[in-house]
């Protein structure tokens, strides 16, 4: 199960927070701070998986950094780390396709669309869909027509995002 999904920038400002398990608001703030502190202190050569006990006993923090944004999934021991790592890539590519070269401002001003895209991928802490084309098609059908992006070349979208390992 996925307990929580976060996106925050390299200054620690949260751009998306989604919890799939009930947590007190004060604990949410503390959790975000601790995860940011753990993740931001890691070097580029460090592993993308962290063991933690921040939520509901033992769990894992799986993260990837794209430019100045950290995408963090907090999962239980039943989830595959490599699978979640791949899921983060699917989520980022879905954002990139829906927003045409997504940037941090899109996360700030289009948070409803971001949540709608995420809801196509994860629901109730469980992975719903991993096919990128299905996710993008479902998300775009929900977006207002005037704000839909045009057809995108996969090569140009991925070139705008590099991954750190």
């Amino acid at each position, binding site marked *: 199960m996925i307990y929580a999904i976060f996106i925050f*920038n*390299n*200054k*620690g*400002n949260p751009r998306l927070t989604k919890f799939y398990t009930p947590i007190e608001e004060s604990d949410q703030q503390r959790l975000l701070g601790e995860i940011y502190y753990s993740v*931001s202190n890691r070097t*580029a050569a460090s592993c993308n998986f962290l063991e933690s006990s921040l939520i509901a006993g033992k769990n894992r923090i799986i993260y990837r*950094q*794209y*430019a*100045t944004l950290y995408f963090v999934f907090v999962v239980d021991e039943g989830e595959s780390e490599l699978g979640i790592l791949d899921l983060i890539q699917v989520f980022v590519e879905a954002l990139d396709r829906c927003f045409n070269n997504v*940037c*941090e*401002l899109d996360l*700030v*001003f289009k948070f409803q669309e971001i949540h709608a895209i995420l809801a196509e991928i994860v629901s109730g802490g469980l992975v719903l869909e991993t096919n990128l084309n299905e996710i993008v098609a479902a998300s775009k059908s929900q977006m207002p027509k005037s704000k839909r992006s045009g057809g995108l070349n996969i090569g140009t979208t991925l070139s*705008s*995002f*590099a991954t*750190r390992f």
Partner: protein
Amino acid sequence: MDSKRILVIGKSKSGKVTFVKALTGTLPSGLNLTSNETSHAGLSHEYTLKNKYFQKEVGLWIDEYTNLEETLEAYASEDAKEVINAIGAIIYTFRSYEPQEWSLWNTFSENLKNPIPIVGLHMDTSSMVVPPDSPYLEYVAFFQTGKNEFGEKLGLERVLEIFDCCEWDFDSNENVSEDFVLPGKDSSMSLDDSELNALVNQVKQLRGSDLDIQERKKQAISFINSLVDERFQESDLN
């Protein structure tokens, strides 16, 4: 213009005006072009921040220092609180990297009540440095262009990206006095559960009692008097 400002600060000849010219396309008014020795402290300029979501007129303040420690102490003092609250981002320009200055900026930023993005803008083209990582201070080499191997923008584009995500509006809550207490938040006016239960029980007893009407009226008046400060009388209802 009622948005926060960008503070551009550095030593003399550290590239402050070069940055302002590159950012806005024009030089600040009041700049003395005939002399290279004139201090740039106190100059101001205007900049229009534009992106696909908003457009904002943001003012630029230029300041110059000879002793960074004293300058940062002044900015951190209580007298400068309003100035700090009016700043949305700080650009610290330098030609040669000095670890002590970098450390002073880190300490200054750590102690700020509301964090302000601070960019250490290296204006020298001939050398690159790798300062220690800091959550408060970001190093940007001004003359770099394009993106690095991680897809991060470089140079002036990175500075613009930082500006896009800064808070430029004044938070209305910042001006609220800390001594202000909302009515009803005072604990002496709040009722805990036991007091509330006692009141409800009194009302129930009065309602269910077998007393005659005059006696019940007296008890009701005495009950109301216990709730209000003034002496309540039946004639007050008219």
